[in-house]
């Protein structure tokens, strides 16, 4: 989230698309209710199902799963055509005026540079025209046909209301009414907030869904302001933290990157990360990349990371593919190329698509280690549970170790909420039996491995034996020690470059990332967390809930990254003179000499607003309506069908799914078509359950005891399915049996003259725990992900459905 939950009360219009906050984030959703009750805000919900969020909305419209980009591009087109644009914001705070290269273009659903063989674009032409001075050329009048604004206008021209209706199934009048409500928020004194979750990310073009709304928000001037923003509600309690700390194949904490093979050494690695400003006088904060990277390497390898060995750069692995993400790992397992696999609080047997493939993959491992507070399906994948897990136990040679871990109540440390607040928590219960903290388990395993390398030698022991491990108890580092390491400290005195004065003494915690240095004099495990544990103590433990003037910022409650800032890009809440666009909703402002306000300003404290652009992380100094080559599937979002869809792509019928999404050959063969599987399925959560955890809790298991699927009355009639009757749902990769919930909440839609039925499949059942045995949507979903993130396409796939015999009573 760019803004905190508590800021939603400041909005005028909430648009929920790609999420269902009332059910999946109930206590956060109360801030929508607050905005409705006290500001007169309106709530718009666009969703394939009439959800509980929709039930309290001022306006609801249905949409076919997987067609959001068409809706969003249509809304952008409508705003441009009807002059619903925050012009000052667009002109000065976005790259609307930047000129795009002459050889960039789009046709037949594809941007310039497509290579069908490689399933990739050559992105060379997706760039600005650069002048002799090295800066991008611009046209502040926005009239040059090659400027981003005109290029965007041309790009969205096809998304007329008729076109949108035809693709999305959203009735034209509803689409236009929503455009009207959105358009009002282009006024400086009106803001809209976007609340979305996995309903937007779990598509083969998920990242482009989000881009689409972000662009709309920029056109309306709604980024950086109170009551605005792009608010990713996020699924799990610390998925923000785990991503911040880079627990992904290609990441280093603080959104730095693991090198690829082509980055043969430290200098080559840095050469593509110079981030020189693209306009005069801009901050381009990523110019500090080397500083953060050296501080990270010092945190990892301490004295073994020296200037002479390029800070131990070669200790890091280098990737030969973009990422060894979870889908690739299960593909490799199926190809007998993985021997050992660890699952730490992760239940892939129910959460990774194509369960059959997950089972065969796990069956080929030599050893599977599961660390979890609960007895999961994954740790029992080899156990036969009849139709619910029909495996041949004796033939599975995988050795499985199931290690009991503590849960939140017994553990200490910080979780990062979706508003980027790092909230420390304390243990209040003794772990059951022999359950242990994850930190203890990891330290115990790793110190044993280190000991083996110390005594036996072996393959490149250096990164292991030299890993910094400076903990009071090497067998169980304390959370406070680990948190301090992430914050960072001075290894030798750090001085102010201007005055030479010592600002942090050797051994002291830094108080912010501005004190980090690239010369080896500082270390920090995760630069964006600098300031979370300073010499003054644990800032994440702060619990002062004061909020001057009730703005909703709570600066003394816990710590928010970066720099305790609560609203990202908040500099953009003020105009070119540094004064708030909306005087009734000030956030930060310029007093002629310095920035100040209710939030920590997202700009250098003395940066003159008329000279320095508000988007300081970007080389442009402004935000991007056109993203150059930063996304694999295009600098503008373009409509693409899901990999399994009832319709061909209207721009290019030959194109299946996202043309650059990675899909393995064996999985192409397992895609289904609408002739065999005519109905569109989508997965979702219920209020009473959290993933596959709460079915272990007898209370939640009683509240929602049994797996069901939701269908419309029309589909039920068509297939002869009765209310509460048992049905079989099957697709190209598997089948499940469930109770049928026949409901008015789902209605058939008409797309391209065809009736489209939607089948809703909640995701909370398996074969372990207190609830009745059932299945998850992953028995049915395709093994393909988003082109940029590899997030699996759980939200739009094809199935068939028929009545089934009632279960035999045992």
């Amino acid at each position, binding site marked *: 989230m760019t803004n905190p939950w508590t800021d939603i009360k400041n909005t005028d219009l909430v648009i929920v698309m790609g999420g269902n906050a009332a059910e999946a*984030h109930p*206590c956060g959703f*109360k801030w929508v209710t607050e905005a409705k009750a006290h500001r007169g805000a309106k709530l718009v919900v666009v969703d394939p199902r009439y959800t509980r969020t929709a039930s309290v909305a001022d306006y609801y419209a249905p949409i076919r799963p997987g067609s959001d980009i068409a809706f969003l591009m249509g809304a952008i087109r409508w705003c441009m055509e009807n002059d619903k644009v925050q012009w000052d914001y667009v002109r000065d705070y976005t790259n609307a005026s930047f000129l795009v290269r002459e050889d960039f273009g789009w046709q037949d659903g594809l941007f310039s540079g497509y290579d069908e063989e490689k399933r990739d674009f050559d992105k060379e032409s997706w760039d600005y025209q650069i002048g002799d001075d090295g800066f991008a050329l611009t046209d502040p009048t926005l009239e040059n046909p090659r400027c981003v604004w005109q290029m965007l206008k041309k790009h969205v021209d096809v998304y007329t209301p008729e076109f949108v209706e035809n693709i999305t199934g959203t009735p034209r009048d509803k689409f236009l009414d929503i455009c009207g409500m959105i358009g009002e928020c282009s006024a400086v004194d009106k803001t809209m907030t976007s609340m979305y979750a996995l309903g937007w990310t*779990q598509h083969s073009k998920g990242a482009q869904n989000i881009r689409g709304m972000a662009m709309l928000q920029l056109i309306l001037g709604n980024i950086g302001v109170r009551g605005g923003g792009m608010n990713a509600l996020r*699924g*799990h*309690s*610390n*998925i923000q933290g785990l991503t911040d*700390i880079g627990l992904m194949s290609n990441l280093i*904490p603080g959104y730095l990157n*693991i090198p690829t093979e082509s980055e043969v050494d430290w200098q080559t690695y840095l050469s593509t990360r110079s981030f020189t400003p693209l306009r005069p006088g801009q901050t381009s904060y990523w110019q500090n990349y080397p500083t953060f990277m050296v501080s990270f390497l010092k945190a990892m390898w301490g004295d073994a990371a020296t200037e002479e060995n390029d800070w131990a750069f070669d200790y890091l*692995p*280098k990737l030969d593919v973009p990422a060894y993400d979870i889908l690739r*790992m299960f593909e490799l397992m199926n190809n007998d190329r*993985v*021997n*050992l696999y660890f699952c*730490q*609080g992760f239940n892939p047997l129910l*959460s*990774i698509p194509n369960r059959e493939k997950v089972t065969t993959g796990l069956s080929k491992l030599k*050893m599977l*280690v599961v660390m979890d507070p*609960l007895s999961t399906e994954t740790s029992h994948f*080899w156990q036969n549970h009849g139709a619910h897990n029909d495996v041949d136990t004796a033939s599975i040679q995988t050795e*499985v*170790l*199931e290690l009991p871990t503590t*849960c*939140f*109540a*017994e553990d200490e440390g*910080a*979780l990062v909420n*979706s508003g980027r*607040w790092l*909230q420390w928590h304390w243990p209040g219960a*003794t772990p*059951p039996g022999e*359950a242990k903290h*994850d930190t203890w388990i*990891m330290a115990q*395993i790793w110190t*044993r*491995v280190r000991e*083996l390398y110390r005594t036996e030698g072996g*393959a490149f022991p250096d990164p*292991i034996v030299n890993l910094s491990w400076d903990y009071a108890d090497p067998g169980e580092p304390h959370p406070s020690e680990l948190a301090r390491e*992430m914050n960072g400290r001075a290894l030798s005195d750090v001085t102010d470059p201007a005055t030479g004065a010592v600002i942090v003494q050797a051994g002291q915690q830094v108080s912010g990332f501005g004190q980090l240095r690239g010369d080896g004099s500082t270390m920090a495990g995760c630069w964006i967390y600098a300031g979370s544990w300073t010499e003054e103590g644990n800032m994440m433990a702060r*619990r*002062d809930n004061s909020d001057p003037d009730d703005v909703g910022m709570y600066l003394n409650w816990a710590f928010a990254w970066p720099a305790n800032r609560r609203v990202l890009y908040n500099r953009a809440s003020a105009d070119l003179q540094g004064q708030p666009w909306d005087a009734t909703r000030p956030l930060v402002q310029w007093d002629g000499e310095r920035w100040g306000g209710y939030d920590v300003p997202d700009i250098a404290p003395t940066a003159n607003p008329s000279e320095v652009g508000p988007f300081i992380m970007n080389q442009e100094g402004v935000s991007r309506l056109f993203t150059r080559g930063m996304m694999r599937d295009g600098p503008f979002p373009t409509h693409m069908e899901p990999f399994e869809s009832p319709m061909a792509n209207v721009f290019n019928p030959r194109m299946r799914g996202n043309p650059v999404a990675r899909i393995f050959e064996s999985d192409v063969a397992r895609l289904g078509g609408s002739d065999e599987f005519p109905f569109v399925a989508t997965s979702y959560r219920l209020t009473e359950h959290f993933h596959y955890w709460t079915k*272990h809790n*007898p209370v*939640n298991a009683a509240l929602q005891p049994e797996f069901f699927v939701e269908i419309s009355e029309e589909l039920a009639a068509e297939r002869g399915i009765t209310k509460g009757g048992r049905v079989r749902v099957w697709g190209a990769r598997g089948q499940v049996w469930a109770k049928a919930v026949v409901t008015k909440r789902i209605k058939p839609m008409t797309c391209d003259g065809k009736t489209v039925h939607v089948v809703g499949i909640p995701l909370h059942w398996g074969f372990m725990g*207190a609830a009745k045995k059932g299945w998850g949507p992953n028995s049915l979903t395709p093994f393909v*992900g988003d082109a940029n*993130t*590899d*997030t699996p396409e759980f939200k739009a796939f094809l199935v068939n459905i028929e009545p089934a015999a009632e279960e035999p009573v045992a």
Partner: protein
Amino acid sequence: MNIDLSRRGFLRLAGAGVAATSLGAMGFGSAEAAEAAQVRAYKLATTTETRNTCPYCSVACGIIMYSRGDVKAGETAELMHIEGDADHPTNRGTLCPKGAALKDFVHAPTRLTHPRIRRAGSDQFEEISWDEALDKIARELKDDRDANFIATNDEGTPVNRWTTAGFLAASATTNETAWLTYKTVRSMGIVGFDNQARV
């Protein structure tokens, strides 16, 4: 700053003060006071309170856990009740049906309490000691890494990659667990590293 001030604890102290004062003011003699002291105290007034966060969705509602026994004092503590933290800016004391039932998640019948092993081809788990389990895992890691570690590619560039082992990290562990996991997994060169951000 950094106050771990328990609001309920404060109220309890204040309440005890009021009780003592009013007993005196109403003229109870020592016998009555002694009898009053025998009256069963409210269950929650004899518990330790601890601030924590709901581990489910990323609204991250503040919660207060009530336990018999104090972990901080090194005692065995049993969780008895969980409620929303009324002072938390986001949830203001409310919890949804998931958070409201958290205590029973902690005490779920399917919580794991002992390390177990399922041997190749077997149809059951058997208990194993921590030491034996950890030694076994360390040995497997070491042997597999030594056998399959890719130090350089064909061009001779150091790549330090180990692709035959993979690690899936969680979604609800703490930052501190995440950082320790990051350090250990990366130091070994494991690239099949992922978390639950996508699902």
